[in-house]
């Protein structure tokens, strides 16, 4: 009993500490934004390394996300006897509102969030972050700000591509596998498409990017204990980012998509 309470207590303290640490990191990030002009080189480098280089992966997963959603929707439609002309509508909504932003963000957390934590974590345990500070360079400006900004802007950028590619994937499956013509599919998609949904999807994606960047940097900065510590921090980073993405996704559903 005592042991159980101790474990719950310790976990609770860790959770609150982490929440406080993340808020502090967010505060420091916001303060460092005033130094954007002299960090442009670093920011563009991260936009490319973290964002543009993630594009092929996002394109590949989006093709299959679109494809499987068309297939599964058709399967459900048949089961309930719904007409297949609504396929484009159903798939389009699902992709733009949920699938593209959430799945792109989760994959981005796995690729970029993990990478950022591993890189900064290694820099922490090999004293490179201390070395930066000792040279009078603010590591928040030099390391955190460019990475968080890159995540904040590049997740929505990638989601734009993800939307397009997923719809194309769904279209191909509809035409080839389900026997729905491209006109029928695209008409359905057009009829249900709302610019507001698309923009809301991008807003969500931006917040998910912010979460991935902040959690990635926070876990990296607080790494200790050598190679094992870096591994642990990397895992924690991906787990926390993914969970927060799903929790915030639900909150967004309630706020942005009113029933």
């Amino acid at each position, binding site marked *: 009993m005592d042991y159980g309470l101790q474990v719950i207590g310790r976990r609770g303290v860790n959770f609150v500490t982490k929440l406080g640490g993340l808020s502090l990191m967010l505060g420091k990030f916001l303060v460092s934004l005033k130094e954007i002009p*002299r960090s442009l080189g670093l920011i563009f480098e991260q936009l490319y390394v973290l964002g543009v280089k993630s594009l092929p992966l996002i394109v590949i997963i989006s093709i299959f996300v679109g494809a499987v959603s068309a297939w599964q929707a058709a399967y459900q439609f048949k089961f309930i006897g719904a007409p297949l002309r609504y396929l484009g509508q159903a798939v389009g909504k699902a992709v733009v509102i949920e699938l593209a932003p959430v799945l792109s963000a989760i994959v981005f957390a796995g690729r970029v969030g993990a990478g950022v934590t591993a890189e900064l974590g290694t*820099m922490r345990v*090999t*004293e*490179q972050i*201390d*070395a930066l*500070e*000792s*040279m*009078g*360079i*603010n590591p928040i400006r*030099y390391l955190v700000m460019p990475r968080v900004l890159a995540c904040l802007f590049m997740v929505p950028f990638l989601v734009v591509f993800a939307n397009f590619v997923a719809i194309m994937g769904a279209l191909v499956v509809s035409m080839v596998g389900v026997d729905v013509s491209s006109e029928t599919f695209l008409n359905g998609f057009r009829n249900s498409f709302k610019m507001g949904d698309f923009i809301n999807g991008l807003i969500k994606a931006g917040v998910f990017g912010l979460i991935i960047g902040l959690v990635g940097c926070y876990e990296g900065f607080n790494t200790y204990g050598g190679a094992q510590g870096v591994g642990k921090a990397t895992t924690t980073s991906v787990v926390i980012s993914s969970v927060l993405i799903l929790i915030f996704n639900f909150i967004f559903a309630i706020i942005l998509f009113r029933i």
Partner: protein
Amino acid sequence: MSTPLVQIERLYKSFNSLQVLNDVDITIERGESIVVIGQSGCGKTVLIKHVIKLLEPDEGRVLFDGQDLVELDTKEITAVRRRIGMLFQSAALFDSLTVAENVGLGLKESHRYDNARISEIVLEKLDMVGLTEAAQKSPAELSGGMRKRVGLARAIAYDPEMLLYDEPTTGLDPITADMINNLIVDLNRQLNVTSIAVTHDMKSAFRIANRIVMLYDGKVEFDGTPDEIRSSDNPVVKQFITGSAAGPIHVR
């Protein structure tokens, strides 16, 4: 009398339940070359990290040139840090940058110099450590001794008033270690800096120091000249400088 360059007053520092520094007082005058010795894990590195505010005291104060480091804002601490150079135990070179970029990074990020001037300074500092030919190499291509020398070049890039050396010879073969010792002595003389080195390598300590401080159980066990430490009757000091397993020091 001028203010001492560094005053460490009643310094306490613990990590979780481990009390690492327990009431440490050390005053360092300008021009001194101090070596802090002690067992591995006795808090030597923790001590010098306080001097550059990489760590903050639980209790007590660390003053640099009369200024309490805890009370300084970001701008002021940056100004202090630019007066201090630090060589890290593992050299802590940035592995994504070349040797020249490592040495010039602090200068570049200060936005005070143009690229041509930075290149000049970088070559001058690399020349002082005898590594001009490695300027375009990546840190991964360097040996342990070379990495330390690049770390030294980076530490002196700003022409600091004070240099901190964290275990400068650890992990090096005796010949390379001796070369690093000579380099430290030469640099201290040439640049006229105050220095604090932490080490458990007694050969290195005697070579570099004009004053030796020994930490034991989180406190200052000895503070005196190399000659005084050699003739000390303190059993703890004696055991440490002779490197004997038998004696009052408990091995952790």
